[in-house]
């Protein structure tokens, strides 16, 4: 059904007139030109499209935009504040926890969702939470290390 949907994305409120069954992914990418969120599989199998909706990591390719109506959406573009990288971004950057980079926004957002729920995860909890995010380049070890490091920095309050 075409209707006006109001949602907050990266702190900015948008009103979008569109079919409310469209996937959030495509509204972000095509209507709002927020291309940091990636299309990888279209069925929630790879995690490249992960964004945060009201503090939960979701697969935007299988989330209808209606499910985000009235809610706060955070994408990779909204993660850095005042030009300061988020500790997750900083740790991914420093540890080179990426190669081609295509899965990276989804990895970072999924990890962000994990740390919201569980600020002090064990290594096994990180592995479990990240299991649905695929990286074909095989940067998995570095990604886990980066998440551990970012979690520690966040708990410490300040970036070191």
């Amino acid at each position, binding site marked *: 059904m075409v209707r006006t949907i109001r949602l907050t994305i990266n702190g900015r409120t948008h009103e979008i007139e569109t079919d409310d069954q469209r996937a959030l992914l495509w509204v972000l990418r095509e209507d709002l030109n927020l291309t940091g969120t990636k299309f990888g599989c279209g069925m929630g199998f790879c995690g490249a499209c992960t964004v945060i909706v009201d503090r939960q990591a979701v697969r935007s390719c299988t989330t209808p935009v209606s499910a985000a109506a009235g809610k706060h959406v955070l994408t990779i*573009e909204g993660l850095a504040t005042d030009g300061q990288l988020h500790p997750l971004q900083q740790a991914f950057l420093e540890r080179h926890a990426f190669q081609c980079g295509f899965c990276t926004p989804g990895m970072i957002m999924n990890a962000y969702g994990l740390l919201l729920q569980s600020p002090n995860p064990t290594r096994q909890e990180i592995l479990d939470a990240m299991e649905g995010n695929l990286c074909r380049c095989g940067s998995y070890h570095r990604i886990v290390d980066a998440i551990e490091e970012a979690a520690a920095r966040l708990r410490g309050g300040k970036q070191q």
Partner: protein
Amino acid sequence: MKPTEITRRELLAGAGLYVMIPVEILLAQEPERLPARAGYPTDFNAYLRIGPDGSVTGYAGKVELGQGAMTALAQLLAEELDVPYERVTMVLGDTELCPWDMGTFGSLTVRQFGPVFRAAAAEARAALLEMASEKLGVPVQDLEVRDGIVRERRNPERAVSYGALVAGRRIERRVSHATVKAPGAFQILGTAPSRKDGLEKVTGRAIYAGDVRLPGLLRARILRPPAHGAVLRELDTSEAEKIPGVQIVRDGNFVAVLHPQWDLADLALKRIRAKFEFQEVPLDDSNIFEHLVKNAPPPHTVHQQGDLAVGEKLAQIRLEATYLNSYVAHAPLETHSATAVVQGGKVTVWAGTQTPFRLKTQIAETLKIPEQNVRVITPYVGGGFGGKSASQQALEAARLAQLTGRPVQVVWDRAEEFFYDTFRPAAVVKIRAGLDAEQRLVFWDFYVYCAGDREAQQFYDIPHQRTLASGGWGSNPPGLHPFVVGPWRAPSVNTNTFARESHIDALAAQAGIDPVEFRMRHLRDPRMRRVLEAAASKFGWKPMKLPSGRGVGVSCAMYLGTYTAMMAEIEIDRNSGEIRVQRVVLAQDQGLVVNPDGSRQQMEGGIMMGLGYALTEEVRFRGRMVLDRNFDTYRIPRFSWMPRIETVLIENPEAPASGCGEPPIVNVGAAVANAFYDATGVRLYQLPMTPERVKQALAKT
């Protein structure tokens, strides 16, 4: 993103420094390292530009697939020019701005293009020194360069920056003599600076071909046949056309739905009713190997020495086996994507491709326009692994842009990515070999069908041997494969290594000799011996007779000049048949290491990716239909698979850089299969080693 940020004319008219030097001078200094130069520009201006502010821009026809080309090339340039790495920016894969290149594959960026690029920088530095010498009135030999500033050694106050030297002037200078730095003088090569692509990739600002946005851009979804070779017989687009904003384009069998939004174009595509006709081909993943052996083209001799008949007579123990591997998909996270715009007879295409210059030619042929009217721009590529050497999606985008007169973007969905992938060919390797009374290998007869001949030749010391290869990942007789095959990370070599190293292991078991010791007895090349020793030392390898029950395995391989040895430790769940790889050690000698962290990224990534073809990855198909369409059935490695990984880089800076993107993956199949034998006493002859195959093999004992 604007279609044209900088044109060639602007570039050439700019205030930068253009050094005109024949490239041959430098190329001649390193004859053994040189590629065939055909096609590479001799004019150094093609490779670099020094801006008035002293910043440096490097140009290369290579592309950034994640392998770190942008970073490694920037390091080479910064090193030879003596400028800070941070001041170097790389422009890659733009056919209008960058010098021609054959493509980004074969781990060639540093190995083959690196010397050309370094030479360009060294020549520019020499020219700048001459210019500084004139400006300062100081002989060249009394000058030094640091951070892009030329100074008199004894009087550092007398200085001039590269930027000041070139400011506002166009200089065409030739130098008669220049040399590249010796390894001992390196300051930037051999270090691991922050990746050039890092900031954009962690912030989501990195642009891939499907992220290009242009005014009036249409997204295209294309009608696909259910099987390769199918012909469109009936078409009804009436339901699709009911979606507002939809445009249908038909050109023969080629039917596309266009809409400003990808998902709505996709919705419309799903409403098209089409009937295709195709012939059933009686092939599937169970009978393919028989078919390949029967229909492969006649073999060619890769290598022959001694006399096989003599070797066979000397043999006391003979061992014969057949090794199989299935079709494997590239499955990059970014599906094939491209954006095309036609303006005034000129077409510009942003493409996720490994071969921008070849694509430029293909686009010109497809659109029937002159090549100089085609520009291919390669933004970041979301993984390639050989699969983006083919760029059908870019031809589709260009064709639709021409047909509609609008900018068009094509982003394949995951099912298209599997359907049109140029799979790693299914292959068969037959090996016969024998040991004499002293347990030495006396003959080796290796016949590879369909994988390709790369690194098929034996490197163990065996007096009587022959290597035959039939077919490969390049061109094949029609009907041999039910779909297109192509290069997949280290083409041929995963298959050939799995077969050779499994067989060597089996022979070691027959001989009752520790598999590392058995290999060492047959290895003369000191570099191969050294990587094997390094791997064994890191792993803590304890000599044993196979099978020891521990579940450890070893494999050695050569890949285009890079030496690798891998050891793996596994656990087997005998109920489920699942193999779990717990630890992998990889030692590698790739000669000069431009960036050790970049090399380790490739090693870690290659090991992880290799676990896929070793354990789960195989394309299921029926006739010319591809049954795997997404990551639910086609299982690639994920976080829970992570073994402990340890990498050893051999220091060998005097040997030319031989590349590191592909070698790390080639041993995984054999190292795991050999560990399986060590654990169970049962040999697995087919990749991938799926739970079903494991259970079947164990049930036979």
